[in-house]
């Protein structure tokens, strides 16, 4: 598999960014959705620190991923994909990039404005505060963080749903070419597909 992206498939670097960030966002989401149930005592604050540190990790990875995407480009849409579908897919990708940046940024802003305690990356070093403590900003950033999560979840569902649709019903390479697995020759539409 190529390190760079080719017109047929995503290269090693783009795939690594994609799946690493998928895994991180999944863990962050589980932590974020459940940590509010924990007793609010210092014994459990490490869970919040883990959620925030993983989020900062995603932020850093996303910046690198965006740079790579701008440098390495993207495969062309699988053959036979209508232009409007390719357009929606492209828009979804860029919205996902935007959300994957906006989530950690709104979370970081929420943390800074709350002014509760220092944000130390996995307990190792202190990250700067984006703003001074402010109940107003904390309220807005917290609401944005909650709302954007559900926007992100909806986009992920649409994006993954479309990938499975292409794989299961269109029988094209749209999903497989984001997987490291077999070297499959590009457009193989089964001859018996369609009327």
């Amino acid at each position, binding site marked *: 598999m190529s390190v760079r992206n080719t017109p047929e498939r995503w290269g090693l670097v783009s795939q690594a960014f994609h799946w690493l960030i998928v895994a991180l966002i999944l863990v962050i989401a589980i932590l974020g959705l459940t940590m509010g149930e924990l007793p*609010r*005592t*210092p014994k459990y604050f490490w869970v919040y620190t883990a959620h925030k540190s993983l989020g900062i990790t995603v932020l850093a990875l996303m910046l690198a991923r965006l740079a790579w995407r701008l440098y390495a480009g993207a495969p062309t849409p699988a053959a036979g994909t209508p232009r409007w579908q390719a357009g929606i897919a492209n828009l979804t990708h860029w919205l996902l990039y935007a959300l994957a940046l906006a989530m950690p940024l709104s979370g970081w802003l929420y943390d800074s404005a709350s*002014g*509760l*305690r220092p944000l130390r990356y996995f307990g190792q070093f202190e990250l700067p505060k984006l703003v001074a*403590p402010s109940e107003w900003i904390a309220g807005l950033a917290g609401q944005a963080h909650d709302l954007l999560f559900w926007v992100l979840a909806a986009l992920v569902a649409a994006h993954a749903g479309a990938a499975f649709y292409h794989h299961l019903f269109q029988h094209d390479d749209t999903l497989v070419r984001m997987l490291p697995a077999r070297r499959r020759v590009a457009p193989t539409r089964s001859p018996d597909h369609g009327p």
Partner: protein
Amino acid sequence: MAHKLTTPAAVAAMLVAMLAPARAADYVQAPGSSLAFATKYDGEMFTGRFGGFDTRLSFDPERLDDARLDVTIELAGTRTGNADRDSTLLGADFFNVGKFAQARYVADRFRALGGDRYAADGTLSLRGVNRPVTLEFTWTPGRPALLSGRATVQRLAFGVGGGDWADTRTIPDEVAISTRVFLTPAP
């Protein structure tokens, strides 16, 4: 020369003479007063204001033996600029306002520290615990007069932030209290 305590008028005149100076030095709290605390969480400083407080003071720099300070502090309604922190602060681990809605500070031993500075050695009742606390303050006469003071309270002695919160590397034991009380003569 002995007073002649023979007529009601004479008795009344003498009582007025005795009471008048004391009454003149009795004060109540005027609007604009503040009572705040400051501490840190994991090195991050924050300040808070209590839900309210009410001050009664008898004070005459010339008669410190007669001075008395009595402050009632409403713990409910304490605000630190963060709703999560506030709810924790009012809960059982900290102020426990469900059980102890008020704190009280009473002092009747006063010392002159020189100039306009004084110290009051009093007792703070907080969370059902009574402990000595010294308030150092400056006194600025006037209408209103201003008492501007500072004290240090050892939170753990009162059980504020026990259990999981007791680690003083996270929250120091000493909490800084500062107050500016405007005082007008008691009606």
